[in-house]
Each structure stands twice: as structure tokens, then as C-alpha cells.
């Protein structure tokens, strides 16, 4: 409990996390409002399309998770933390718990707020969740945000550098995953094993554009993809903890 309190104080006592949170809320809601306000009849209004902006919130959250971990190495507060908690692992678990809990709350807020906003902007559309898949699309954002935070902390522990970690996660999520699909032949199959594609397969509502890519049938179901994504996130965090424990601080 002491360590959770320490990490909570750390998280909320600098400005960057607050800025990230503000952007991670405003950006998805803004996108949703514009989309439902301006989209013509050719765009279907359904539960899936209410979540088109949520991914942007998740990217900002990933930045937050990387930032609050990697900056501790840059500023030296990680050494101070290890001085106070020489076994190191409990402190790292406390950090991932606090950042993960924040991510869970943020994910649920983004998803339900986007859905609620869409219902207000497009009152005629049927946006009532009917099926289990609909609920998975809404509730699943919380889980995906949580796992994304775990991944962000893990990458930062492995690289121990703000600029390097941020560049890696942003290039990966914004560029690399998207272009792999265009590799002739195997590209489409590799794409279907990319972590953030996997997370989207879990929440469903993969967007109205993915049909145009002509992807083969996905190799896993939604829950299989969740397990796959979770394994990658927890694996990276575990590797980060293992390395941090062994390395000189």
C-alpha cells in the first residue's frame, strides 16, 4: 500500500500526466462529435463507429505510460526509488498497478463518453448495445487501455530513455503496423499478428476501412486475440522488470 501511495503521488504531482489525460479525453470525444455530426448517410452509425476516436486516446495513454516511467530514468528518481526499495520489483509492480488503474478508468470513460456523445449528436441512430459483441466493444476498451499501459511501462523499462521509447512506440503504432500490410504476399498475414491489430480484433468494430484491405479471415477469435495481446504486453513488462532487477541502476 505504501508503494502504491508513493507511485500515486509521483504520477499526479507533475504536469505531463495531466496534459496527457486532458488530450486523451478531448481528442476521442472531439473526433466522435465531428464524425457523427458531419458524416453523411454512407457512413454507418453503430456501436463500432462510436469507438473510432478511442484509439487516439489510447495512443496518448501509451505516451503517458512511457513518459512517467522513462522520465524517472532521465531525472534519476528511479535510482532514488531503488534506494528506498532495494528489491526493486515491488516498486515496479506498484508503478504498473497505478498507471494501469488509471488506464482502465480512462479507457472506460473514453468508450462510454464517446458512445454517449454519439447518441446525443445522432439521436436517430440505433446505438443501443444489443449483443455481447456490442458490450465487448464498449467495455473492452478498459482492458485494452490497461494492457497498453502495461506495454508502455515495459518498453520504458527496457529502453530507459524518454526520447527513444516514445519514438519507438509512436513509430510502431502510427507507421509500422499500418505499412506492414502493404508488403506483397506475406504482409497481410504478418499484419494479422501485430499487437495493436490484435487489440482491435478483440474490441471489434475494426473500422469501415479494413474491408478495403482485403485481409484473409483472422487466425484467432476475439478472445484469442485478447490473450495474444495480453501475452505481448505482460511479456514486455516482465522482460523490463527482469532486466531492471539485474542491471546496475
Amino acid at each position, binding site marked *: 500500500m505504501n508503494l502504491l501511495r*508513493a507511485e500515486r503521488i509521483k504520477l499526479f504531482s507533475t504536469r505531463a500526466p495531466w496534459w496527457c489525460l486532458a488530450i486523451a479525453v478531448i481528442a476521442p470525444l472531439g473526433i466522435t462529435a465531428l464524425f457523427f455530426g458531419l458524416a453523411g448517410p454512407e457512413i454507418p452509425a453503430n456501436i463500432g463507429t462510436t469507438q473510432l476516436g478511442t484509439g487516439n486516446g489510447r495512443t496518448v495513454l501509451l505516451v503517458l505510460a512511457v513518459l512517467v516511467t522513462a522520465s524517472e530514468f532521465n531525472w534519476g528518481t528511479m535510482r532514488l*526509488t531503488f534506494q528506498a526499495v532495494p528489491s526493486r520489483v515491488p516498486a515496479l509492480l506498484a508503478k504498473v498497478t497505478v498507471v494501469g488503474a488509471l488506464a482502465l478508468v480512462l479507457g472506460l470513460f473514453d468508450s462510454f463518453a464517446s458512445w454517449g456523445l454519439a447518441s446525443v449528436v445522432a439521436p436517430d441512430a440505433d446505438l443501443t448495445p444489443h449483443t455481447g459483441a456490442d458490450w465487448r466493444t464498449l467495455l473492452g476498451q478498459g482492458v485494452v487501455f490497461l494492457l497498453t499501459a502495461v506495454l508502455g511501462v515495459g518498453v520504458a523499462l527496457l529502453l530507459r530513455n524518454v526520447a527513444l521509447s516514445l519514438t519507438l512506440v509512436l513509430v510502431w503504432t502510427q507507421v509500422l503496423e499500418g505499412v506492414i500490410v502493404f508488403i506483397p504476399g506475406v504482409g497481410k498475414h504478418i499484419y494479422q499478428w501485430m499487437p495493436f491489430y490484435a487489440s482491435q480484433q478483440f474490441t471489434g468494430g475494426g473500422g469501415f476501412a479494413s474491408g478495403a484491405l482485403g485481409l484473409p479471415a483472422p487466425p484467432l477469435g476475439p478472445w484469442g486475440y485478447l490473450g495474444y495481446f495480453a501475452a505481448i504486453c505482460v511479456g514486455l513488462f516482465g522482460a523490463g522488470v527482469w532486466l531492471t532487477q539485474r542491471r546496475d*541502476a
Partner: protein
Amino acid sequence: MIEATALRKSYGDTVAVNELTFTAHAGRVTGFLGPNGAGKSTTMRLILGLDTPDSGTVTIEGTPYRHLKDPLKTVGAMLDAMWRHPGRSARDHLRWLAATNGLPDKRADEVLALVGLTSVAKTRVAQYSLGMQQRLGIAASLLGDPRVLLYDEPVNGLDPEGIVWIRQLMHALAAEGRTVFVSSHLLPEMAQTAQDLVVIGRGRLIYQGTTADFVARTSEHGVRVRTPHADELRTALAEGNAEFTETDGAFVVSGVDSDRIGELAFAAGATLHELSPITGTLEQAYLDLTSEAVEFPAAATPGATR
């Protein structure tokens, strides 16, 4: 008490700390002295378990650092005053650190008062002067009211007022029975602060003992003697097995002390116009001892060889 036994740590091909054994005792300020690059900071990190030694052990009150429960209550340390987030207030910085070891927020306020930062407790640390950041680092070291304190170069970059403040604080902490282990590459500062010295060069122990002994053992560089009866004195010194050189009509005698020289001169009937021990400065003694052990020696200055 801090006890290091045969500590060794290398980074790649560079041996930073080499078979280092020393003890820092409770109730005393122990100065940890050596040129830049001698391995002082590495040793500090080994003591705090931040780095793992290749071999050897170091214990605090008999326990390795990594086995201490809530270590801030046993050991307070400031290895680098810059280990803080500049966007965080001093109070929040101390609050999170206190929380890790189950200490209440009240302790943060208490140590801030102790170092005189109460009025700026809620100011972002980025706006602090260097001296204020040092004070914050010292406040952090005192959070758990620890028995053992470690400071790495605490007076670096401080103004004279700050230096005096830190020196008095170290004395006060040691007087309360705590172990105070403080590193510096500045000998004059250590001579005024430390009762004991651990001197290292290139990662090896050069001297361990009291500061007074260090000064006495290393500061006598001979005795200067002037006499109008040079021939008599020369003979007497030779018979007394003393070594001497003559420059500008004066002798510089070594190997015997000034009492013996006076007796030899008296017996030989040589009148003395001067009989004065040449006491080098502490700085000189330190340079003599560590000159072999400087990692990056400057090229010899022409005409400055002694």
C-alpha cells in the same frame, strides 16, 4: 557503522574499485577522499546496492543494504542532488519518497523545516538555486531519521555560507551518534569537516585513519637550518646520520627531527640562526600521496617540479 571488505567493481576493462576495505564508525564524520575518478561515487553506489560489486561485501550496521527493511530508516543518502523531477514541488518530492518507507507526510514538512525550505515547499524544484537543491537532497536523506548518512560531494558548487551550513550539520549529526560518511575531492574542506579519513586513488585504499594522523604523518618535509658555522654543522650532521641539502647558505635536513638537530649543533659548537620544521600543507600531503593514483594526470608544469 559502514564496513566494506575487499570491494571490487569494474566496468568493462576499467577497474573502478579495487579490493577496497575500510570502516566508517558511528559518532564520527568520516571523509572519503580521492581525486576525481578515484572510485568514490562507485563505492557509494555499491554501499547503497544501486550497483552490484563483482566481489567483496559492504554492510551497514552489519546488514547488506539490499536486506534492509525500509532502508530510509537506517540509511539516509544524497548521491546526487539532481535526482529529482524539476516539475515537482519539494514537498511532493519528499512525500513520495517518505511514502515508499511508510513514513507520514508530516516527516516531509519536518525535514523541510530542518533545512529551511518551508517557505518554498510548494514551489517547483526547477526554480530552486543549486544551494536549495542541495538542501532538498539533504532533507530527503533525513526523512527516516537514519543512523547512517552518506553524502557524495555535498558542498560542490555551494557558496561559503552553504558550505559552513553543511559542515555544521555533519558535525551535529555525528555528535548525535550517527555515522556520517562524506566524500570530497577537496582536502581543505575535509580537513575541517572530517575526524577520520578514508583516502583512495584509482579505486585502491591509500590511507585510513584519523585526519590528525594523516596530517602529522605526511606533512613534515624536513627542517630548515641556518648557521655561520657551516663546516662544524656539516660534520655533526654526517656523524648523526642525517640527510641534508644546502641551498643559499641554508641546510634542509631530513631523517632526524629538529630536537636532535639542535643537540647535534650544540655538541659541535655551531651557533644556529634558524631551526624551523618545514610543515607542508595538508593539500601538499594529499597531492604527494595521490599523485601516483590520479587517473588523468596533467602534463608536468615546467619549473614546478619539486
